[in-house]
């Protein structure tokens, strides 16, 4: 009865509220915008990895020396690839955001893109003494500003085009010319507003990016905490429990913060330092590994035909971090028999690696690897640290041990059901 009332409350109140939130235009565009930088960060990560060999300064050996020699011989262009790929992530987010807004509003892309890039450079960058452009704000530091500029500049331009001055051209004027002229007035209006904002920030001795970052600083510092990791893990799993794609829904908000943390780590490593933000895009992969542990627990104890069949189907996908066969087959959705241990397992998936990083038992993950790479390989690649495999195995053992009693209980229920069906 209690389960039913919780289920009813979630279906009637929580799910519509979440659906409403994720359907906001800004949230939708933000999701697309953040995805836009992923390819560039992947390429940039490869350049960075080769530029900075992931070994301690004291490490020696043929392979280590060869990597160092390669890095030294190619340092110049490896750094260029890193700068263009990973350290310009904010700029790519800007492009993705503008594209998403234009697609959503069915607005012309090129003019809005040009305006947004112009505004971003104007609001974010300054000229160096030698004449170059300081692009220090194009990376992690500029991501939040990229989201704001990428959203509001096209919005302003579209609004001015609809409500501003219009010139009606004769029909004989080709459409591409009349369109350009129509765009011109709204563009000039947008540029004036952008300059006004620039002057306003300059008056206070800051830039848009620096101001936005100072506003969001508490959020970023709070995001890199055990509490934030636990809230994220549990929220995602509760959403999955009710059949909603938890990673996508929670990711709509969290991915921006994680991407910024990820790029900030990369910048720190490239500068010869160590990654500092534990909860980042690469770490996020750790929080989804519980499915395989659940499948292993099922394989170890299940006697019912249903669970045996599910484990056979689910094992291979789970090895490659694909959870749907288990989620829908076991099922994990609306299965109150295993709900609590299921939540605990995923909370541990976040807590154990987080604490391991915090107390220096393993390196902080700082390299992005596609999520389908088997977990025991992936955890090493992300951290370049063999100790990550040990942490992974400890995590696995803890999760399997927690799941076994719940699976046993659920299996006994299914077995009794199967026997009752057979006797009928």
């Amino acid at each position, binding site marked *: 009865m209690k389960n039913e009332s919780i289920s009813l409350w979630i279906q009637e109140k929580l799910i519509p509220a979440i659906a409403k939130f994720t359907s906001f235009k800004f949230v939708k565009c933000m999701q697309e915008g953040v995805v836009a930088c*992923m390819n560039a960060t*992947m*390429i940039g990560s*490869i350049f960075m990895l080769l530029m900075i060999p992931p070994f301690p300064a004291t490490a020696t050996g043929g392979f280590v020396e060869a990597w160092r020699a390669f890095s030294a011989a*190619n340092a110049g262009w490896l750094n260029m690839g890193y700068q263009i790929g990973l350290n310009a992530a904010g700029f790519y987010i800007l492009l993705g955001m503008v594209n998403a807004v234009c697609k959503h509003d069915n607005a012309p892309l090129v003019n809005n893109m040009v305006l947004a890039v112009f505004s971003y450079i104007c609001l974010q960058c300054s000229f160096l003494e030698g004449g170059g452009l300081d692009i220090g704000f194009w990376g992690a530091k500029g991501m939040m500003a990229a989201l704001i500029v990428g959203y509001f500049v096209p919005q302003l331009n579209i609004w001015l085009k609809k409500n501003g001055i219009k010139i009606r051209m004769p029909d004989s004027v080709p459409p591409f010319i009349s369109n350009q002229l129509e765009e011109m007035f709204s563009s000039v209006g947008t540029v004036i507003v952008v300059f006004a904002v620039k002057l306003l920030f300059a008056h206070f001795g800051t830039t848009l990016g620096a101001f936005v970052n100072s506003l969001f600083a508490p959020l970023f510092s709070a995001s890199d905490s055990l509490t934030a990791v636990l809230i994220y893990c549990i929220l995602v799993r509760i959403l999955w429990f009710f059949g909603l794609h938890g990673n996508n829904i929670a990711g709509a908000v969290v991915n921006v913060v994680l991407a910024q943390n990820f790029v900030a780590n990369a910048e720190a490593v490239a500068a010869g330092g160590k990654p500092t933000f534990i909860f980042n895009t690469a770490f996020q992969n750790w929080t989804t590994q519980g499915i395989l542990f659940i499948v292993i627990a099922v394989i170890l104890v299940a006697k019912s035909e249903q669970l045996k069949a599910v484990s056979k189907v689910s094992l291979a996908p789970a090895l*490659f971090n*694909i959870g749907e066969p288990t989620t829908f087959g076991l099922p994990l959705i609306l299965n109150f028999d295993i709900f609590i241990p299921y939540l605990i397992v995923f909370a541990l998936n976040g807590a154990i690696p987080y604490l391991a990083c915090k107390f220096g038992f393993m390196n902080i993950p700082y390299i992005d690897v*596609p999520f389908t790479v088997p977990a025991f390989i992936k955890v090493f690649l992300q951290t370049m640290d063999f100790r990550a495999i040990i942490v992974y195995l400890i995590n696995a053992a803890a999760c399997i041990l927690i799941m076994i009693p719940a699976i046993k209980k659920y299996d006994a229920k299914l077995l009794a059901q199967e026997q009752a069906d057979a006797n009928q």
Partner: protein
Amino acid sequence: MNLLIIGLKILLILSWCLTALDVVKLYRSDTGVHMKFDWLSWLNISGTVGFTLVSLFAVINSSTYVFTVCLILVSIFLVWFLKLRLMIAGDHKVLLGSKIIDQSDLRKVSARFLTLYVETKQGTIKLYAPVTERSVTMQLYNAAAGKRGKK
């Protein structure tokens, strides 16, 4: 050794050219060909592009011969691995790895262990973790089930 590295770099470029040639062949032989890939496939392509760029730009230096050769070999392997996993569809034909198949020749499509098994008139084609987009896979299923023209 210098010549070996230059040769390997040329081989790497050739590998990409051969991959592109497969796509061009499909473009020329069919209509409605779109280079659509889902997010994960894009990451795979980006990773391969990243390794290729690093390999191509790598300086030829006596202190880094072996490392550079290994890096280029890894890149060539990745490009071929990608080439054999490409799955792009047009209105009537589909590129499965390096083979262009008429959709009317498709018999059955099934998936197991991250591998897509496509039964055709000519035999079964296996694609490990195809680099594609969900709608292309659905198009293949529909074509195999006899529902043509749906995209």
